[in-house]
C-alpha cells in the first residue's frame, strides 16, 4: 500500500518574476513510519520537445517521517536561463514535483507554467533574445496534474526477492558495489528500484 499520500501542494508567491525561486508548501500524510527519507525533486521542463532541456532545480531529502501529517516548504532556485532554448523561453511549459522512496518514484505533480512579459509593449514585440528579467512566471496552481505510481514500500524481504529475481548477470548486486551495470540499462537492476511490472511476477 502507498504509505505516503500527498494531501496538498500550495504554490507560494505566485505569480512572480522569472528569477525568483520556486516555493511550494507540500503537505503529506504517512500511514506508517518510514525507515528512510523521502526524496523530493523539482524539475523544470525547459522545452516541451525534449527532456534534454529538463533542469532539476533542486532535490532534497525529507525525513525522518513518522506516521502522521507533515508539511514542509520546498524552495528551489529559478531555472538557469542559459539552458532554456530561446524559442521556448516565452510561453507555456511545465514544472514537475516528484517524490521517490528508495529510488522509486511514487508521485508526480505537474503544473503548467506560463512565462510572459509584463508590459504590453514587450508582449507585442518580444525581443529576439528573450529578456528573462522582464518575464513573469505564472504557475497554473489550480490545476495540478497528479500521477501516482505503485511502488514497493517495504524494502526488506521484497528487495531480497527482487535481487534474486534479477538476471544472474547481476552478480554484483551486493550493496556498495558501484560497478556500472552494462547492457541491461534498466533501473530495475538496482535493489529496490523495480519497475512496477516486474513486481507482479514476484
Amino acid at each position, binding site marked *: *500500500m*502507498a504509505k505516503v499520500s500527498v494531501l496538498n*501542494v500550495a504554490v507560494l508567491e505566485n505569480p512572480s518574476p522569472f528569477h525568483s525561486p520556486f516555493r511550494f508548501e507540500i503537505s503529506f*500524510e504517512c*500511514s*506508517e*513510519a518510514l*525507515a*528512510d*527519507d523521502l526524496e523530493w525533486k523539482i*524539475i523544470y*521542463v525547459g522545452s*516541451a*520537445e*525534449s*527532456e*534534454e532541456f*529538463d533542469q*532539476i532545480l533542486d532535490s*532534497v*531529502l*525529507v*525525513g*525522518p517521517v*513518522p*506516521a*502522521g*501529517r*507533515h*508539511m*514542509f*516548504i*520546498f524552495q528551489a532556485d529559478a531555472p*538557469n536561463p542559459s*539552458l532554456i532554448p530561446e524559442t*521556448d523561453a516565452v*510561453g*507555456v511549459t*511545465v514544472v514537475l514535483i516528484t517524490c521517490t522512496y*528508495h529510488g522509486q*518514484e511514487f508521485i*508526480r505533480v*505537474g503544473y*503548467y507554467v506560463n512565462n510572459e512579459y509584463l508590459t504590453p509593449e514587450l508582449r507585442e514585440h518580444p525581443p529576439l533574445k528573450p529578456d528573462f528579467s522582464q518575464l513573469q512566471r505564472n504557475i497554473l496552481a489550480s490545476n*495540478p*496534474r*497528479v*500521477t501516482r*505510481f505503485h511502488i514497493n514500500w517495504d524494502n526488506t524481504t521484497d528487495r531480497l526477492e527482487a535481487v534474486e529475481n534479477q538476471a544472474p548477470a547481476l552478480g554484483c548486486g551486493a*550493496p*556498495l558495489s558501484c560497478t*556500472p*551495470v552494462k547492457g541491461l*540499462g*534498466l*533501473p530495475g*537492476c*538496482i*535493489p529496490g528500484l523495480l519497475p*512496477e511490472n516486474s513486481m507482479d511476477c514476484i
Partner: protein
Amino acid sequence: MKLLKPTWVNHNGKPIFSVDIHPDGTKFATGGQGQDSGKVVIWNMSPVLQEDDEKDENIPKMLCQMDNHLACVNCVRWSNSGMYLASGGDDKLIMVWKRATYIGPSTVFGSSGKLANVEQWRCVSILRSHSGDVMDVAWSPHDAWLASCSVDNTVVIWNAVKFPEILATLRGHSGLVKGLTWDPVGKYIASQADDRSLKVWRTLDWQLETSITKPFDECGGTTHVLRLSWSPDGHYLVSAHAMNNSGPTAQIIEREGWKTNMDFVGHRKAVTVVKFNPKIFKKKQKNGSSAKPSCPYCCCAVGSKDRSLSVWLTCLKRPLVVIHELFDKSIMDISWTLNGLGILVCSMDGSVAFLDFSQDELGDPLSEEEKSRIHQSTYGKSLAIMTEAQLSTAVIENPEMLKYQRRQQQQQLDQKSTTARETGSTASVAGVVNGESLEDIRKNLLKKQVETRTADGRRRITPLCIAQLDTGDFSTAFFNSIPLSGSLVGTMLSSQSSPQLLPLDSSTPNSFGASKPSIEPVAAAGTRPAGDSVSKDSVNATSTPAASSPSVLTTPSKIEPMKAFDSRFTERSKATPGAPALTSVTPTAVERLKEQNLVKELRPRDLLESSSDSDEKVPVTKPSSLSKRKLELEVETVEKKKKGRPRKDSRLMPVSLSVQSPAALTAEKDTMCLSVPAPALKLPMPGPQRAFTLQVSSDPSMYIEVENEVTAVGGVKLSRLKCNREGKEWETVLTSRILTAAGSWDVHRQVVVVKEESLHSILAGSDMTVSQILLTQHGIPVMNLSDGKAYCFNPSLSTWNLVSDKQDSLAQCADFRSSLPPQDAMLCSGPLAIVQGRATTSGRQAARLFSVPHVVQQETTLAYLESQVAAALTLQSSHEYRHWLLLYARYLVNEGFEYRLREICKDLLGPVHYSTGSQWESTVVGLRKRELLKELLPVIGQNLRFQRLFTECQEQLDILRDK
C-alpha cells in the same frame, strides 16, 4: 420479496469478491479488484434501501474507498462491534481499518473533487504472516480474535485486542484454505480447503477437533472461494462445495458428533458461498391460532458458481426461494443485514444484488436475549470467549467505584461530543498544533523548518508534523538519524547507471505527443487516465533503445507543447536519487557548484536550527575542519546573543551552562537556546581557547571563569575554575587530560555540594567528553556526556547516578502511549526532561520494527517507567516525579499489574496507625504521599479489576482523614 440491483455499486466493471454489511446496517463494504491494485469501498446503505435516498443527490452513495491493497481484495469483514473492518487480499496482507474521526470529508489531491471520501477509514494495522493470498477473514463472536486463511495452507488466529500478535497458526490443511467460520459460541472455528477437507479446530487449545473429508471426496479445486457458515444456534455447520452422488451440494454437518447426513441439493455447479442469517426465527403467530410454541429455525442463503442463489429455512424441505440468472458470473459472497431481512450478494461480474424479505416470508426473529438463552441452555456459559469486554458485567462492589465509573463514562461521552463537534469544523481540528493555528505555522514554516546536511552533503528537511494519526497502534515518532545503507547504495548505483537512461527517456514524450489529438491542456488533464499506460510505455522505451534522442531532434514540425507535456505528467522519471541525470553534463556541474555555495550559505542557519538530531551525526570527538568551522560560527552567534556579558579574555567559549537556580531564572531562555549545539560543548577545549568566562545568570556579578593550562604538574594540564558571585570567589583546579572534572557549587546557598569528586569512575577507559553540565533548582549537578548518557550527583550517596541514556534500549522499546493522559501528552518540563531531551519522545518504535511480543514490551515499558520515576526522584524534581509516578500507575492499571500497583499504594499510604518504629516518611521530594495516593485513586478506579484495592485505599484514606 423485493430484488434490486443497484448499478452504482460497482468497481468500474472489475470483479467484486466480497461484500459485508456493517452491523448497524447503515453501510456496507465491498472488496475486489481496482484499477491496478486491490480495492475496498465503503458504501452508504440507505440509497439501497430507499429509492428516495437513491435519487437524492445530497446523500452520498460512496463513503470511502481505499486502494491500499497492492493486489485484489478477496474478503472484507466488519468486526461485530462495527468499529473495525478487516480486509485480506492477494498481496498476502490483512489490513484492519478504523474510522478516523478527526478529519472530515476530504478530496484526493489532484482529482476533480468527485472522489471525495465522505468518511475517513484508516488502516490501523497491517497483519503480515501469510506467505500466500489471503482468501477469507473472520472475526470471532466477541471480536477477541481475528482469523484469516490463505493459499499457504494455514489459518492464522490474530489477537484482535493486541494486533499484530498471533495467537496460533493452524496447520493441517494440505491445500489452499478458502473459507472460515466461527462457531457462534466461540468454541470452534471451521475451515474449508481445496484439499477436500473441512476441519474444525478447538479455540481452547487451537488443536484439530475433527477433519471431515467424506462429502468432499469427489470435489475438484474449482471454486475461487469456499465460504462456509455456522448456524446462529450453533447446531449446524454448512460447507461450501461438497458432492453427493456427483451432484454439487452444500453439506450440513451436525455439531453433535459431526454427522453428515443432510445437504442442500439443487445447484448445478459448485457452491461457493453459504451464509446463515444471523437471526433465529420462529413461525409467525397467526391470529386466532393457538399459541403453541413452534420450534425455532434458521435461515440460510446459498450462492453457487451456476450464478444462482437459493434461500433455505431449516424447517422447510425445499428452498424458500431460488433466483436464477441473477448475475453473469459466479456468486462470490453473501451478507445478511443484522435484522435478518435483507441480503446483499456480490458476483465476479462486478455487480451486487440486494434482496429484501418481509417478516411474513421468513418468520418472527427472536430477540438477542432469546437467542442467548438458547445458547446458554444448549452450551452453558462459554469460558473460552470471556474477555476484557465482559469484565464490564462484573458486579461493582463499592459505591465510590460506581461514582468513578460513571464519571469516566461521562468523560467519554464528553469526549465523543467534542470530537463530534470537531469533525464538524474540519479545518480547525487538525489546524492547531501546540496552540498554534495552521496559518501561523504556515507563515513561519520556512523559517522554522529544520534543514540539515547528510553525510554526503545533501540537503535534508525535517518535515513539520501537523497531526498525528489517531491510530493507537502506530509508533508516532521514529526518528532515525542514521541513513540506512540501502538508500545510499541506491543513490550510488543509480548515479552510475543513469547516463545510460538518458536517451531512452527522451523517446517517450515524442511518441506520446504525436499520437495524441490536440486537446486543451486542462481538458487533457482530466481525460488522461493517470498512470494507466505508464509502466508499459516505460518498458517499451527501455527495450527499444534505438528510438533515442536522434529521432527527437529530427522531428521537423514543432509539436504542440501541450500534447508533448502531457506525457511528462504521467511518465515516471528514471532519474534516481542524487543524480541530476536528465540534465546534460554542464548543468550538472553548475548544480554542483551551486550546491556548494549553498552549503556555505546555509551553514550558520544549519547550526542555529539544527536539532540535537543532527548534532549526533557530527563527529564530536574528532575535531575535523567542519566542526572547527562550526565552532567559529557558533562563537559568533553566541557573542551576538549575549552582549554585555563580562569578558575577561578576548574569546568566549560557548559552553552552555544552564543553571536553574532561582537567580538565573531570567536567563533561562537564553541558556536553553545555547544548550542545543552539542559539539561546541567540549569543556575545556584543547587549542585556542586558553581561558574563558561563563555567565551564569543575567546578574553580571555572577560568573565562572575557566583558565586552561594554568599549571603543569608532571605533564598533566590543569584548568582552574573560578566561581564568582558578588565578589566572592571559589576556586578549584580541574585536570584537563581526563578532560573534565566538575566543581559545582550551590551558588544560592553558597554551599559546596560537590568538590573534587572524581569522575574517573564514569569516564575511565574511554574518550568520552562532558558535553554539558547543569545544576537543577535543588542544586543537583547533572552532567551530560558525549555518548548520550547523563549522570546526576547524588549527594547522600556521594555517587554519580545514571539518569538518562540516549542509547538506552528500554526507552526505545517502551510504549506507554495508551496510558498517557490525553491533554498533557509528554508535556512535562523539568530537569529530567531537559537532561533527557528528546529521549522521551524518540522511542516507541520497537514493537512495530522488531515485532516484539507484547509481553516483552510490557516488561520493557515497566522497567523504563520505573527508571524514570527513580531518575525524577534522584533529581528531586517533584513535578516530574508526580508525572512519571502517575504515568507508571496508569500503565499498571491499564495492563492489569496488581502486585506492583499494590506496592505503590502501600508505600504512598504508609502505616495508618502511627508507630515509633516506622521508617515511613510522609513526603517524597516535597510531595505528600497521601495526596499522591488521592490522585492515584481515580486512576485505579478505571479498571474494575482493581476495585478491591480501590476500596481498601479509599477506606484507609478516609480513616486517616477522620483522625
